[in-house]
């Protein structure tokens, strides 16, 4: 594979620089004179009317062509108002500002993974792994960025974080170097992008080399993230919280089991001042500086961009450093040939939190948890001092870019591009024995994801007459993805100074790979690698009639190595029609400046992220159990068996696909001062794979079958208006996007109407994000109130137990009485962006909202269920230092018997279901452009000298009782363990020379 690419790219280079001298013989030039001059004529013509051909000397190549593809402005980010906001990641930039795009930022810790869902969820939302399969393709200058592969979760016991740096790779986007960010939702355009974009696409074009304009831009900001206001509590509060439970229900034996850390009220560790927040939350600086230089001539030009950013969280000393380097170059060695290339290199160094849960999830080792962290700063600082012995290096290095050649041969444009994205992540983690009951821990991770693509395209414009033209395009692409990681975790080093697990690297010796340090480590190793190739060919045609009507069609054939051999090649079509109503009917109308209607339909296949489905019936090493999932074999030898845990995979698994229909009307009124667009869409994600339960007597829990269909339909409304426009007075520009989405499960494999998936249930006709819960109807105050003989899963209900609704009236509360309710995903999302300008001043504020989503308050469930939590000594028993606080709008729950066998505070009841809708004032920016003042005008060099101040995450309006309705995990559970999203204030400037 690599060989092919190297030879191809070598040939390409050779064709530019080396071949001229090789073929200067007579035969060639004699016969070719004529065509040369024809070509010359074309180029002259194109100088007069540069829009005829998409290639222009100053805007060359793939990226700009791509921009023209997505001609509309309505699905793009307002870069000008986004740039002064100190966002770190792409997700943060687009949150609430791209129509139809829902961004989840479940953790305020900088650089952690975030999710993008375009026009509703195409799959399940139950585990972290599921979320990976919902992400849209993100294109950076035409490079479809490769994301981390979720296969690492195979060797993990807990899925809070992926092993390795787990850094959000889309933190690589620096808004200062971005020209445009567009969301691609149109069926036809998505079909052009192919299977990578089955979940939609975000298309980012960076600022790039341009001719004729030399400019230098220098931008910088500096500011602080600020700590939140917290109401801290200590053991007194916790003691009082527990009192009613004990008074009401406790037996003498229960009193014996009273939490040991709360027994002694003179113990200052728990009953002293609670001031942990002074050490936990901090004002932390955040800053960034970047420099962009563009220059060159018509025939050769370049852009350089470099930046350094430090982004910080307000809690637990978390931060991330980002370094960007970008270089773009365009050349036209001949008038008919252009070469352009961009290379983008990024490094992300992340400094992660010190939370107990994340540490124990990484170490998979739970020490005695009977004494939680003290809320007292003096004692908590001791814990932090021990943490200083930690090693926690998280580094991601990213290199991506492309090389594109474009040639114009008569009316044919040929272009070929080599596209690559390589990112590697490494994590070295050490935690000393003092933090884990005398056992130190080391883990080392190295992993990479790599994508190489070869694209070839040829396009031809056929002009029938003045009014009728047809554009033809054929293309082909080869894509190779490789994912790999090596991971080793090791316990119990010789002492806390040995923080490296050095091994014998000499494969000739017997002790190869044995750990070298005397006393040793207890090492567990994991290696995994996966490859996936995708090959595509397509042809498309676009017929245009006199700028009034356009009809496009594409037919493509894609083959994925992750599909089963007999069904891995699939042919998919897409169509689009545009009708310019203004031109046809309202040519003279003054109301409309623009009125278009366009409709499209398209199908694109979805490729599996995992190579297991291609193999059919298979054997894996799955020898463990729930608590110990990664036991490799027996008797010191590897064992292989059918995948009893992960589920059977048979033959006949065909690739899933998405069918999209789209109808858009867009119009401009009042001299283009008001733009409006309405889009209605319908998407069916069909033939998706899902594990359906099988009788457990077969040894399997599940068999994987295709046939799940999920439908998303919705409406998007976008308005952009220049409300006030006075040349020397106030200008007010406002834009609103409002999106409604309805998700529905349409079908399950084998005609099933419902499937139980762990603690979740899927029912045809309901949203896939529904919760499956018992309905809580209060409390049984006395045994007399309990209907005679009523049981909960066979256990007789008693006084102090919850009154759960018995829907099927069989007097037995069991899973048949659980109902589907709520939805993890919002019904309405959107944002409202405003810019007020007066002379050199401007003021921008950005509101975002998400309405209608629900969340399970697992934090309160475990807080009230403290008896079971503390008895369990498992990952859910962990009490973080940040749990020593109360929240303003905390709810109170009935006092159930926490010792009851029915597990009264179980999370799967609607008692803990909450509305997580929110509206946020995401950012406010006020700025002044000194570039037009006399101060700078004199020098004449400054095009812009903009000074601004921005406040981020200013306030939230919500009914949610936890810290922040955004801090809900992907699976819809709020566990209170994630760090808060900080309020940030920055001062910055932008200089354009």
């Amino acid at each position: 594979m690599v060989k092919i690419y190297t030879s191809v790219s070598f040939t390409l280079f050779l064709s530019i620089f080396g071949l001229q001298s090789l073929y200067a013989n007579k035969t060639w030039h004699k016969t070719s004179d004529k065509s040369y001059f024809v070509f010359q004529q074309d180029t002259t013509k194109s100088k007069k009317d540069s829009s005829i051909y998409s290639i222009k000397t100053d805007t060359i190549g793939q990226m700009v062509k791509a921009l023209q593809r997505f001609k509309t402005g309505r699905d793009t980010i307002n870069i000008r108002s986004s740039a002064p906001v100190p966002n770190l990641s792409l997700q943060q930039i687009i949150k609430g500002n791209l129509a139809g795009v829902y961004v989840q930022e479940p953790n305020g810790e900088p650089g952690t993974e975030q999710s993008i869902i375009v026009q509703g969820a195409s799959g399940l939302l139950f585990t972290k792994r599921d979320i990976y399969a919902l992400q849209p393709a993100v294109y950076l200058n035409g490079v479809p960025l490769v994301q981390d592969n979720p296969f690492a979760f195979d060797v993990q016991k807990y899925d809070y974080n992926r092993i390795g740096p787990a850094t959000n790779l889309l933190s690589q986007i620096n808004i200062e170097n971005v020209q445009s960010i567009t969301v691609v939702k149109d069926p036809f355009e998505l079909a052009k992008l192919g299977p990578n974009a089955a979940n939609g696409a975000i298309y980012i074009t960076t600022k790039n080399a341009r001719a004729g304009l030399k400019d230098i831009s220098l931008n910088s900001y500096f500011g602080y993230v600020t700590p939140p206001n917290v109401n801290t509590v200590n053991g007194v509060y916790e003691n009082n919280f527990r009192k009613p439970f004990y008074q009401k229900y406790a037996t003498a034996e229960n009193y014996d089991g009273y939490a040991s850390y709360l027994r002694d009220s003179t113990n200052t560790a728990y009953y002293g001042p609670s001031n942990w927040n002074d050490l936990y939350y901090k004002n932390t600086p955040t800053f960034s500086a970047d420099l962009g230089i563009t220059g060159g001539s018509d025939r050769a030009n370049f852009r350089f961009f470099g930046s350094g950013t430090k982004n910080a969280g307000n809690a637990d000393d978390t931060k991330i450093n980002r370094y960007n380097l970008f270089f773009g170059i365009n050349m036209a060695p001949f008038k008919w040939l252009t070469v352009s290339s961009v290379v983008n290199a990024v490094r992300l160094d992340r400094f992660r939190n010190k939370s107990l849960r994340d540490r124990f999830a990484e170490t998979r080792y739970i020490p005695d948890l009977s004494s939680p962290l003290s809320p007292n700063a003096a004692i908590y600082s001791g814990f932090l001092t021990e943490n200083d012995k930690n090693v926690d290096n998280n580094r991601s290095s990213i290199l991506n870019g492309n090389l594109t050649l474009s040639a114009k041969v008569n009316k044919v444009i040929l272009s070929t591009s080599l596209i690559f994205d390589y990112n590697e992540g490494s994590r070295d983690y050490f935690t000393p024995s003092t933090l884990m009951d005398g056992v130190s821990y080391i883990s080392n991770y190295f992993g990479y994801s790599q994508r190489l693509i070869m694209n070839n395209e040829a396009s031809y414009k056929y002009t029938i007459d003045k009014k009728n033209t047809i554009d033809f395009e054929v293309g082909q692409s080869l894509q190779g993805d490789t994912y790999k990681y090596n991971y080793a975790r090791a316990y119990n080093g010789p002492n806390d100074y040995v923080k490296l697990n050095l091994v014998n690297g000499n494969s000739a010796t017997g002790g190869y790979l044995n750990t070298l340090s005397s006393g040793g480590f207890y090492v567990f190793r994991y290696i995994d690698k996966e490859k996936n190739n995708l090959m595509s060919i397509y042809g498309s045609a676009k017929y245009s009639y006199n700028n009034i009507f356009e009809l496009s069609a594409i037919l493509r054939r894609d083959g994925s190595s992750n599909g089963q051999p007999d069904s891995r090649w699939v042919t998919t079509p897409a169509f689009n029609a545009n009708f310019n109503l203004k031109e046809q009917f309202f040519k003279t109308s003054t109301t409309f400046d623009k009125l278009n209607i366009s409709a499209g339909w398209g199908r694109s296949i979805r490729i599996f992220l995992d190579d297991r489905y291609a193999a059919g019936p298979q054997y894996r090493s799955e020898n463990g159990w729930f608590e110990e999932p990664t036991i490799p074999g027996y008797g010191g030898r590897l064992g292989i068996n059918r995948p009893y845990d992960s589920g059977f995979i048979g033959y006949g698994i065909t690739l899933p696909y998405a069918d999209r229909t789209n109808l858009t009307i867009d119009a401009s009124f009042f001299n283009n001062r008001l733009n409006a667009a309405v889009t209605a869409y319908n998407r069916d994600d069909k033939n998706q794979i899902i594990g359906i339960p099988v009788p457990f007597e077969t040894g399997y829990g599940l068999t994987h079958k295709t046939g799940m269909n999920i439908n998303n339909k919705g409406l998007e409304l976008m308005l952009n208006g220049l409300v006030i426009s006075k040349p020397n007075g106030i200008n007010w520009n406002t834009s609103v996007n409002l999106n409604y989405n309805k998700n529905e499960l349409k079908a399950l494999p084998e005609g099933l109407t419902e499937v139980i998936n762990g603690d979740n249930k899927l029912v045809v006709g309901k949203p896939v994000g529904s919760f499956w819960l018992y309905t809580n109807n209060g409390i049984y105050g006395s045994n007399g109130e309990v209907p005679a003989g009523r049981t909960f899963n066979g256990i007789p209900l008693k006084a102090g137990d919850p009154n759960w609704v018995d829907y099927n009236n069989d007097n037995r509360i069991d899973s048949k009485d659980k109902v589907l309710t709520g939805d993890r995903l919002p019904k309405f999302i959107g944002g409202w962006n405003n810019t007020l300008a007066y002379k050199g001043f401007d003021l921008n504020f950005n509101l975002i909202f998400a309405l209608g989503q629900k969340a399970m308050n697992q934090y309160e469930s475990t807080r009230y269920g403290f008896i079971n939590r503390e008895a369990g000594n498992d990952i859910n028993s962990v009490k973080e230092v940040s749990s020593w606080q109360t929240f303003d709008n905390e709810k109170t729950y009935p006092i159930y018997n926490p010792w009851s066998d029915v597990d009264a505070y179980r999370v799967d009841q609607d008692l803990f279901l909450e509305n997580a809708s929110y509206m946020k004032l995401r950012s406010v920016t006020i700025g002044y452009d000194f570039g037009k003042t006399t101060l700078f005008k004199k020098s004449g060099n400054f095009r812009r000298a903009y000074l601004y101040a921005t406040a981020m995450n200013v306030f939230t309006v919500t009914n949610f009782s936890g810290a922040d309705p955004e801090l809900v995990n992907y699976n819809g559970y709020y566990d209170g363990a994630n760090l808060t999203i900080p309020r940030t204030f920055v001062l910055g400037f932008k200089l354009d020379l």
Partner: protein
Amino acid sequence: MNYIINKRNNFYKISAAVFMLLIGVGNFSCKKIDDVASTRLATEETNWKTLEDAKANLLSVYGLLRSATVADNGHWVLGDLRQGDFTITNRADLKAVVNGQLNASYPVINRLTNWRRFYAAINAASLFVERSKEILALDPRYTKLNNDVDVAQARMLRGFAYFYMSRIWGDVPLLTSSHDGEFIKLARTSQQKVLAYATNEVLASAKVVPFRYGGTDPIMPGLYYGADWPSWNGIVFTRLSAYIILAHIAAWQGNYIDAANYSKFVLDNQSTQYFVDGANPLDYIDMLALTENQNNYSPFAYKRANLMVGFPFEAGNGLSTANGHIEQLTLASPFIPKSMPEMFVPKDTILKAFPNAADLRFSIDVVTKQYRTNYFYNFQSERPIFNKVKVIYPSNTSGNVTLFSSSMVFSRMEEITLLRAEALAALGQKEDAFNALNRACNLRGISFSPTTTPDLMAAIFAERRRELMGEGWRWYDIIRYNRIKNSNGVFAVKNGQQMTFKQFEQAGGIYWPVSQDVITANSSITQNPYWQ
């Protein structure tokens, strides 16, 4: 000028040709490019081809059955808690088990009552029985004898799994072939049929498997998968293992004639693993091996011949785990850094169970005048720590690493000898029964005689209680004992209604409920009537 123009012109033509060529090149390689062999799994094309495949697939059956028995500490939660000697400190789920509230709503109980884990092992065994012979034709290194022995082991494991499950749930669905790739729904089969099937399987296997693998056993001489007997003992099931399982199935069925015969075979053939082929011998173990991880004999800390039926977790093979060992439930400070054990044996129970002042397991040491700590540490405290089994990474008796390497021990010499004593006592062969009983407790400092021991059967079961405490036997021993005694006393109370053992057994109370998940997945499975 003309020259330059022409030269350019040439170049443009050439480049155009190169472009076309590239497009062509891409298409040529397309079929190849789409075939990516996964390095993460074995497929039908790659499995069942070589000797190594046979080994990997066979050992997985062991591995799966090991996981099935110890998952969520199931071997002990199911075996030692119901009406057992342990008191739970805090954990509500374990308390529910002790109190007989086996349908309580806790994740651990839900997982334990799901029998899928056993059927995974059974399916893997069936698949091995059906498919492993394919290798014979493909790999000349894989001999007929090797295959026969492997298939016999798979059948023995399948039979053992059915017996183990049947002790827990009574009637269980009986699947005797893999039905690979189809998912049939079967109802429960009567326990009688299941046990008959298990007996057949193990008996058939017993005729094939050797006494030793990889050694000089004439049944199967020479290295077994390239390894010798010291490397295989304690790992794979031998002919003695087969007869132990048979003896237990027979005893469970009340068929004490067979139980006596099978156990006799085992004891008579101790010599087959006694100081042969360079391995540590099969023998009765002393106190050091029982509680202090003595290297040559301890079946808990090491894979030794003494692990006659059971599954090891050798630290050296990266198999020390937190879950899957009794230590996770019973140990605490000073053995491991943990303030309180999850369960312990209360003082009264200890005193009641260990009445003999000479008992080396628990009594007052005549020299130090202190309570012996072999079984119980800090006896005088509120929660004496049951530390009989304490194999802390790698094989220490105490340490900071709370990963444990103790084996799941189903049977060892003492256990099978006591079973023989039980069988003989049931058959009325008192003298032989006393001999067997005294042989079993010979190294424990106590002995029994007809004069001092009026109730022999009670003495045998009391000795089982002491010797096998924390080895997952208590509940099943209680059942066998009560079946023999058939007393009219109150055994259990359900919904205020008192039940004798017989009533309790007939109501299905001795068995566990099956998880609702099992019933949801297969509607022809009925809940155990006692738990409906």
